[in-house]
């Protein structure tokens, strides 16, 4: 189960309408970064056969089976931190993060 907060969902919707196409958001993990795994966040134009789809606050979130193992229970939020503004993952599977937070270990 993957969900998005209201703040995140409304941002995604805004981005999608600005972009003019796309059916939702893709969350995933890939094998790079200083702690082993790194997050992937992309627009989706068409879904893949092995995707799981979750609807949350009116947006569609696609996750491939492999990534879901590492992401199950994740909540996507949109926040401001200092001058930065962007999406934030709250992932209950994470045991350790690297200093930059872009990669993690489960």
């Amino acid at each position, binding site marked *: 189960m993957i969900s998005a907060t209201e703040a995140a969902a409304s941002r995604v919707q805004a981005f999608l309408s600005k972009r003019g196409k796309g059916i939702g958001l893709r969350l995933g993990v*890939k*094998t790079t970064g200083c702690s082993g795994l790194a997050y*992937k966040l992309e*627009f989706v134009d068409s879904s893949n056969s092995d995707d799981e789809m979750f609807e949350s606050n009116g947006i569609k979130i696609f996750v491939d089976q492999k990534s879901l*193992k590492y992401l199950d229970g994740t909540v996507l939020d949109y926040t401001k931190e200092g001058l930065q*503004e*962007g999406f934030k993952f709250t992932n209950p599977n994470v045991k350790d993060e690297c200093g*930059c*937070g872009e990669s993690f*270990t489960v």
Partner: protein
Amino acid sequence: MALLQIAEPEMSGVPHQRNIAIGIDLGTTNSIVATVKSGEAVVLSDQDGKNLIPSVVNYGEDTVIVGRAAQKLRVTDPANTIVSVKRFMGRSFADLDPEITYPYKFVKQASHIQINTRQGIKDSVQVSADILKSLKALATDSLGEEAVGAVITVPAYFDDAQRIATKHAAELAGLNVLRLLNEPTAAAIAYGLDSKQEGIFLVYDLGGGTFDVSILRLNKGVFEVLAVSGDTHLGGDDFDHRLFCYILQKSNLSQLSDEDTALLLVKSREVKEQFSIKEKVALNVVLSNKKIVNILITRVEFEEIVHNLVQKTMLPVKKALRDAKLSKDDISEIIMVGGSTRLLPIRQAVREFFAKEPLTSINPDEVVAIGASIQANVLVGNTKDDWLLLDVTPLSLGVETMGGLTEKIIPRNSPIPVARAQEFTTYKDGQTAMTIHVVQGEREMVADCRSLARFTLRGIPPMVAGQPRIRITYQIDADGLLTVSAKEMSTGIISQIEVKPSYGLSGDEIQSMLAESIDNADKDMQMRFYQEAVVDAKALIDSIEKAIIQDSDLLLDGEMDKISHVSMQLKVKIARIVDDYTEATTQIKNLTNQLNDVSNNFASRRMNQAISASLKGKNVSQVLTENE
């Protein structure tokens, strides 16, 4: 964590471009380089059309020769021709087997193995780098472009020192190491087992002189190594030797010259290889003393000769299954790696044991390099796949605690990359520094484990014993390299070390360390309980003695004598040499309880005094506020 932005589909990370990536199987005897061309993995050949490049380096007057040409110089220039350098990787001179005589001039004082050659002192990293340089040149020549990255395979049992040495050699050769990959994992990739959704695979790797068994699990496209096992002194050479002995026996030969021994060993090997296609093999050799050896060996005879060796390979197979807590029915595929798995009796034994046909369609000499090249191709971003390859720690990693005990932080067979943290505290009041001793092994006592590193965390604010929280984190990256850090949680001061042990462990030593831990499991646990009881007892004695000095006025008449009496008994008991640890543990625990009992009232009086002192002159709301 850092905040992220959304990327275009498939564009997060490296943009797609055509990058050449290579996979290298850096072997003890031979090395192989492979790449993926137009979606297909191929092994690269040298000018002579040969795929296997002997891992041999010759240092001439002003030349460095690698491969077959170097191998020919072994006879004429042995001191400057280095063979099997992989056995020296990450090892010290003291690790060398004194039984084996090497033709090299070793630099004896060095902390790691160094050889004095015509071109000066060379260590194992430099020699390996020369092999890798030659493989890199071969790849550049046949691909017309330099590779942007390489995946290099290592045995699953390689420890940190051996992995670091391999990585350094590759860097020295000017290769961009994408990652080190365990050999069995590479073999599984070569067979495309990742395309299945799930399964448990056993990799049976019988090379010339070593035997490795690994069990891999694939779950939703994710590989994980469950267990490794093996025998470092079992391989194709042993089969040659058995056949050699049989030929001597059958032809009534004895006391051969060195030349004839070498000749017959080569012939034995040829005969062995022919049994993969023939029912019977004729041997016809003329020895140096003109004696003629002319015999016929049938496949049935051959199978009898090697029967014991074949059965011997099944022991590590069973052990790996036990370690992974699996039965043979759980194995969905068996992958055959190494030239010796071409032998029919081997395939037969594996087939019978698992009641399943093993995978043999890819050349068993090349399968590891092929898997490495496929992985390299993925890592430089040429495909849409991104596997999460998980490997495993061969031995537990732990930290020394009071009493010389081992506290395991990362248990053996943990999939890597992995990070585990545990909190520790101080033992003495006002302690401001803590030594972190990193050990490797399965035993309960630090003295029986292998010491990897030691470092000190300083600047802990002085507090009562047991109050500071020191978080110790062990992190192993995707290449199996260990970083240990210690952080004092209230101040955030941190101290860390990257473990680069000066010498490594062989698969043999790992096996014997594991065997010892099983043999000594009971004794170790008794010892551990005993040491824990001693640590507790000493801590209690320590705190009571300190209390008596501070608050002797709170002691009642005779109380001091009682406490001293029990305390003395306990001290004597701790100092005594122990025969029976279980009994000694019980006695120490009983005395510790007694000491607790006789000092209990004194302790409560101190507590009451401390509380009333802190409450004096304050009203209830003040006290509550302070405690918030």
